[in-house]
């Protein structure tokens, strides 16, 4: 990875690029280096059995440990979407017929995956960057290399696998909690019985809604873990560098979530 970075510096010096030009060039180098991590991770599928303990550890960190935060985020998201939907459906008469489908579709397609993704970007993505970044600046990654252990296989692959597997599962869990919250508000404040709520869901919701939401979640999990790993491996400097890496990982992961969200929506829902 260092070679690419040096190549960029040489090219920018040769072309007398300004800061903007260098940043653009660095962006493409970053994309290239991330792709190399992803490629290596794909090749490391053959080590899944050997590294099952490492993968399980990361699955617990990203999945189980995130549950409290996901519960809080989802329940209030579901409740507020019911309040919003009820307010807008007033103009069309009774909310009974549409409350279930409108909130559930919004939750499964958009709110569930995106909000869970942002929570995971803050918790998991930033912590990956901080952990790997600290390992980089304290020579622990050099130590892995001198022990003939591939740092991408040992550090990045389990995190990326965990992100890919756990994000869709967390999203299903978040969707269920959010829909329950929405149903609760419909029943307690709008007299929409759970049976009517579910009948509305059954009538209007299609499988594509759920698939697009889960596909988004899978992409969010992969991109968050990949960005966290890439930023962590590229960390330079001491504690300050680790701090910068942590913020950078969160910002980039969040941006990637929004971009992926649009791409999946544009491809699957138009």
């Amino acid at each position, binding site marked *: 990875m260092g070679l690419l970075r040096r190549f960029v510096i040489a090219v920018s010096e040769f072309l007398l690029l300004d800061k903007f030009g260098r940043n653009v060039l660095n962006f493409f180098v970053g994309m290239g280096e991330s792709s190399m991590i992803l490629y290596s991770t794909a090749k490391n599928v053959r080590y899944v059995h050997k590294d099952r303990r490492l993968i399980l550890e990361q699955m617990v960190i990203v999945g189980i440990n995130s549950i409290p935060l996901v519960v809080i985020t989802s329940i209030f998201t579901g409740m507020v979407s019911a309040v919003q939907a009820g307010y807008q459906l007033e103009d069309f008469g009774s909310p009974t017929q549409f409350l279930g489908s409108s909130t559930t579709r919004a939750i499964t397609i958009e709110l569930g995956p995106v909000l869970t993704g942002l929570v995971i970007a803050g918790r998991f993505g930033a912590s990956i960057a901080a952990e790997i970044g600290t390992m980089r600046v304290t020579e*622990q990654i*050099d*130590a892995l*290399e*001198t*022990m*003939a*252990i*591939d740092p991408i296989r040992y550090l990045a692959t389990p995190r990326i696998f965990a992100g890919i597997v756990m994000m869709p599962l967390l999203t299903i869990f978040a969707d269920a909690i959010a829909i329950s919250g929405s149903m609760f508000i419909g029943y307690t404040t709008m007299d929409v019985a759970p049976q009517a709520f579910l009948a509305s869901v059954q009538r209007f919701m299609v499988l594509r809604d759920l698939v697009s939401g889960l596909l988004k979640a899978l992409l969010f999990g992969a991109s968050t873990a990949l960005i966290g790993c890439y930023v962590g491996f590229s960390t330079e400097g001491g504690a300050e560098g680790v701090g910068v890496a942590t913020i950078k990982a969160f910002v980039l992961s969040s941006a990637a979530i929004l971009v992926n969200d649009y791409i999946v929506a544009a491809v699957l829902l138009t």
Partner: protein
Amino acid sequence: MIEIIDLHKNFRNNKKVLDGVNLIIEPGKTTTIVGRSGCGKSVLLKHIVALLRPDRGKVLIEGENISEMTSQGLFETRKKMGLVFQNGALFDSLTVEENIGLGLREHTTMSDEEISSKVSRLLDMVGLPNIEKYKTSELSGGMRKRVSLARALAMDPEYVLYDEPTTGLDPIMSAIIDELIVRLATELKITSIVVTHDMKSVYKISDRVAMLHYGKVQFYGTAEELRHTNDPVVRQFIEGNVDGPIKPIHKDGR
């Protein structure tokens, strides 16, 4: 044998760190590399294990250029080497036992019991029995270095590289580490390369000494030859004199 041939390395802003280093590390001997802070000793060590790639020149390990090895070849070569980092570079998230046993777990088919027993033997060897379950945050500086040494020895390496093994330690702990290095070299016939500033250690452990100065090898010989050299640069360094040919800061910022 390790041969370093015409090794050049520049860093950012064209800062020249290695400027044509030529050095032969003889098998079974302990070679110490000395020189002022920032003269490129650790950089040289990192080239030997291919953590850094040279701008020019080569490092031959048993006749093979380490920079041109395939990743598989490099992994196999690194299995023959152990590096003791200046600050230990122990894995924070693992216990002492997991740190030392990681290489064995990754590269051998040893059972958990066999690994535990080997880890205990290594900890005994470095004088730290019964600390297997300690977290690395519970270790003092001297303990970290010794655990790092135990980790470097776990794969029974042919070469052990030490990056300032006694820096920051009290004189007694430094003497213990020096004795360990000598014992490993004599008992296990390990080829050792030690980067150090500590002249007391140099005389105690070295079969050969190389001094780096402005990116080149200024002196190469035995510890005895070092003691009696007339080279004014080397004399100033080993005697720690302020006045002499070595200026506090080189015009390049080195």
